[in-house]
């Protein structure tokens, strides 16, 4: 039987559709434990490829009959080897084209809704890393928010919509992934906005993103309003788009809240985090749809693959918004935090323009799951 390559975009569809898929992950056990393809109805078997060099007989009985089987490795070479061996035994399998590398870099655009005058808002879901970025399009112009380093995807997407990217924003200086914001701005001539309090050490010119800035896209039709909301970083800034959507960056997620420790200043920033979540956001309309920069778990995805929920619902259901006792809040967000993201210091330095690692190194730096939240 022939083996079939499966593209990351096809796997993404399976995740969105909550399809059943059996993943035979042939990376080493540490890598698998650290990070894998998550899906509500996915099941897994992890056997490193180097345990299968002498044959696949041992695992045949562990493979389910009648389910789609996808062999996965880091870059695809080993998964092709194992898939070939299984195929010779008469088992029909696919392998993930480009491996976990491709999975980590895949962005799936999901339309969130229509804006005034034919405008549109899209969320780019990076399933492999839990990153969410955004593009608002109106009247032939576009704004990009919290872009990943896969800049081509945004450029091509804007082109396909006949829109020119005019503004690029980062809600904060990211520590978990490398921002593509500056490169997109350079490629398109767009303005690149950063909160100045996060940008004290950056090596390039930028527009100062401050509380109350108003930016319009496509003439006067779409309005983006910024709201200073520190706590994950001291500069963290949120956006309200057309009084309907609240882009929270890494301050508030669907089922968790931001962590204040990734710049080494948890004690200093915990008060800001509390103020942003419990006062500033509290004063906003409950009808705003929260659009975070990350998700942690596949359960946070809506049925259409989007990650979005009304602010009012989060005030009811998100545990991080319901810790009345301030001392307890302080304890939860500064103690027993999850491990810090892989290479977060180097990622911050890259985003400041202090270092410029090559693409292979950038990929290595971003390996692994997202860890920007406290639950």
């Amino acid at each position, binding site marked *: 039987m022939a083996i079939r390559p499966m593209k990351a975009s096809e796997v993404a569809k399976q995740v969105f559709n909550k399809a059943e898929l059996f993943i035979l992950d042939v990376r*080493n*056990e*540490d*890598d698998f434990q650290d990070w894998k393809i998550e899906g509500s109805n996915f099941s897994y078997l992890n056997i*490193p*490829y*180097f*345990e299968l*060099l002498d044959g696949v007989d041992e695992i045949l009985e562990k493979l389910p009959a009648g389910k789609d089987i996808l062999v996965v*490795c*880091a*870059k695809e*070479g*080993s998964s092709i*080897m194992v898939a070939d061996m299984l195929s010779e035994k008469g088992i029909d399998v696919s392998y993930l084209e480009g491996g976990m590398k491709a999975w980590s870099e895949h962005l799936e655009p999901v339309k969130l809704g229509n804006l005034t005058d034919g405008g549109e808002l899209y969320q780019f879901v990076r399933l492999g890393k839990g990153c969410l970025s955004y593009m608002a399009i109106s009247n032939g112009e576009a704004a990009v928010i919290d872009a990943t380093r896969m800049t081509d995807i945004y450029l091509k997407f804007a082109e396909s919509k006949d829109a020119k990217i005019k503004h690029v924003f980062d809600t904060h200086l990211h520590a978990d992934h490398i921002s593509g914001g500056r490169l997109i701005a350079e490629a398109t001539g767009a303005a690149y906005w950063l909160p100045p309090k996060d940008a004290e050490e950056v090596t390039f010119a930028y527009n100062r993103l401050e509380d109350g800035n108003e930016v319009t896209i496509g003439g006067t039709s779409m309005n983006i309003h910024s709201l200073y909301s520190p706590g994950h970083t001291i500069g963290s800034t949120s956006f309200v788009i057309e009084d309907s959507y609240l882009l929270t960056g890494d301050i508030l997620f669907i089922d968790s809240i931001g962590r204040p420790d990734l710049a080494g200043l948890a004690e200093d920033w915990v008060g800001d985090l509390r103020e942003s979540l419990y006062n500033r956001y509290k004063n906003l309309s409950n009808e705003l749809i929260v659009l975070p920069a990350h998700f942690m778990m596949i359960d946070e995805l809506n049925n259409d693959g989007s990650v979005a929920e009304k602010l009012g619902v989060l005030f009811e259901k998100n545990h991080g918004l319901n810790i009345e006792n301030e001392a307890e809040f302080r304890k939860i967000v500064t103690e027993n935090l999850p491990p810090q993201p892989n290479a977060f210091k180097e990622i911050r330095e890259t985003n400041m323009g202090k270092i410029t690692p090559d693409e*292979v190194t950038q990929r*290595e730096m971003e390996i692994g799951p997202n860890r920007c939240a406290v639950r």
Partner: protein
Amino acid sequence: MENINVNQRLDAKGLACPMPIVKTKKAMKELESGHIIEILATDKGSKADLKAWANSSGHQYLGTIEESGVLKHYLRKSSNVETKNENKHPHTISNEELIPLLEKNNQAVVLDVRESAEYAFGHIPGAVSIPMGELEKNCGNLNKEAEIYVICRTGSRSDLAAQMLTKNGFEKVVNVVPGMSEWTGKVEGI
């Protein structure tokens, strides 16, 4: 940098996963037990995978050095001697006893008889390195009056070394058990 002697080299540069491990596995079959192989690779993933493969196949992963984009991995083929033989040298000392003794007695000689590659990636500070295979011809350089604590990874090679030194007229020779595999004291190396 310390000189790392190897018995065999394998060039897997430019090869993507799974090839570095496929080739290593093949080369390992040809290698003599206890011998050291150096694997040159450019695939970054080869480090974690070789380490995990070595652990699961019973070989000893010594370490990796990165030099201008090339990863140099060092592995030692598992040796049957170390798992089967019973130690025969009568004088032994435990790791735990040796640690305070070294702090007090700076005249004591620690003789590390593992391969130079094993020594390079981690040894007791001040330990003298003479691999087991070269000990007989080099033992003349050691002081016969000194207390010599012979150490290897698990206590087997050092047992043979201790017996050999005794035969050659050394009187204060002690075998350290189990040795570096469970050493909790100070270590220096790459």
